[in-house]
């Protein structure tokens, strides 16, 4: 049986321009100076099969978040290509587009529509989100009156209940108090283990990666070090990190 591919990344380069942000004066004086470039990703290629859970590891500054954001379409690659094969995608980020002066209820819609869902789709899942967030009457109060725990509970609920084919997760596995932490971890596990869903997780916690992922991609200094089954790559990575 042919395996279905969900994400194809080919020769991905992403570059930050150090001096891109400039003032008018600077653009006169520094016009001819060489622009300092920072290469965050230097030609990474890989494929992810549908339904796989891929963990992305690497030390700080290895380009993990940059890669997630490129795949999510927030950055454009400077070179190379990303093909999502028509899947819907979302970067699981907490509280996107929240307006703190408005009620939590209104923010469900704001945030949800921003993630690319239609009003009707949100309406259908509205109750699930409210139930999952579990913040009681506060859902009808302005978000600025929330405790930080409540805030992340609601934000997590929105992103977790409104699901997409591909989910990108950047270190947001646990929020809220102990009870909610467990609940959100379980929900995350449930979301992730759906056979039709492809998930990419960035995390520094090897424990999390080991528990959740079946494949691991190791980035170092913007380059692909290794990709393969979790139990193969993780020991190598650990050894490498210990020797640093």
């Amino acid at each position, binding site marked *: 049986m042919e395996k279905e591919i969900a994400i194809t990344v080919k020769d991905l380069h*992403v570059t*930050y*321009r150090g001096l*891109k*942000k*400039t*003032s*008018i*004066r600077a*653009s006169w004086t520094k016009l001819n100076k060489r622009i300092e470039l920072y290469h965050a990703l230097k030609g990474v290629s890989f494929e992810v099969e549908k339904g796989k859970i891929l963990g992305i590891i690497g030390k700080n500054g290895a380009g993990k978040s940059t890669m997630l*954001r490129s795949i*999510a*379409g*927030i*950055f*454009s690659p400077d070179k190379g290509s990303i093909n999502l094969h028509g899947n819907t995608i*979302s*970067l699981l*980020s907490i509280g*996107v*587009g929240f*307006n*703190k*002066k*408005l009620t939590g209820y*209104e923010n469900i*819609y*704001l945030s949800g*529509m*921003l*993630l690319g869902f*239609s*009003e009707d789709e949100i309406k259908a899942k509205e109750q699930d989100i409210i139930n999952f967030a579990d913040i009681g009457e506060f859902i009808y109060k*302005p978000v600025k009156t929330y405790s930080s725990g409540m805030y992340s509970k609601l934000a997590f609920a929105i992103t977790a209940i409104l699901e997409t084919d591909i989910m990108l997760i950047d270190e947001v596995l646990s929020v809220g108090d102990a009870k909610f932490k467990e609940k959100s971890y379980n929900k995350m596990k449930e979301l992730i283990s759906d056979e039709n869903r492809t998930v990419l997780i960035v995390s520094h916690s090897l424990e999390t990666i080991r528990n959740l992922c079946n494949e691991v991609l190791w980035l170092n200094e913007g380059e692909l070090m290794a990709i393969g089954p979790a139990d193969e790559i993780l020991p190598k990575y650990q050894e490498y990190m210990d020797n640093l």
Partner: protein
Amino acid sequence: MKKFFNNIKKYFKYAIRSAKAELKSEVADSYLNWLWWVIEPLSFMLIYSLIFGTIMKRGGDEFKIFVLLGLTIWEFFNRMITGSVKLIIDNRDLVTKVYLPKYILLLSKSFTYLFKMAISFCICLLMMLVTGVEFNIYMLFIIPIVIIAYILAFGIGMILMHFGVTLNDLANLTTIGLKMLFYLSGVFYNIKDTFGNRAIFGKKIIDDILLYGNPIAFCMQQTRDVTLSNMFPNFMFLGIWGLVGILLCMIGIHLIHKNENSYAKVI
């Protein structure tokens, strides 16, 4: 271009919702609530007509309406331009976390400004009712004038929004530019009366340049002409500025499509 219209269609509802949200949150904490949307243009009008009407002895009730119409158009342009320069940076949270066509931010903002403009026009109508200035059929031409003003402002806004990302001091420049435009556009005086009888180079060029060369002054003048002077608008120049507006929009759309995915790297 097709991409632009598809995007607008796709995100239109979001833009409306986010505009409503912003309007709501703007007044959520204030004591007088939505009344501020009425009080603000009214008090500006009172200030200007006090200074220029009463102290400098110009016009009566009609002058108040004249000023208010001018302010209505001016404030729309002013808000669009000021609002667009820092738009991407102000929405840093959003821009770095989700993909959304960047002109949707401007679209949503522009809805809030259109709303305020509509309130301002309503106050004009009320004033006309109260003061007995006659209504006329020509006033309907305000609609095409506003549409052209919107296209122009949207085009300018997109271009400024793009350069506002990388040019730090663009905001300072636009503040100065707007100040100048404010006095040149004739918000509280009539360009024709003021410059019209002053001949330079043997001809009365200045008022023409000021009137027809500055879209803000032009839209203002046209709005006043159709409302207060029972005149047809100047269709030729409306057409020209409409075309310029469309051209600016196309440039802006092109700039944004080409660069929007890099904004997140810079801010």
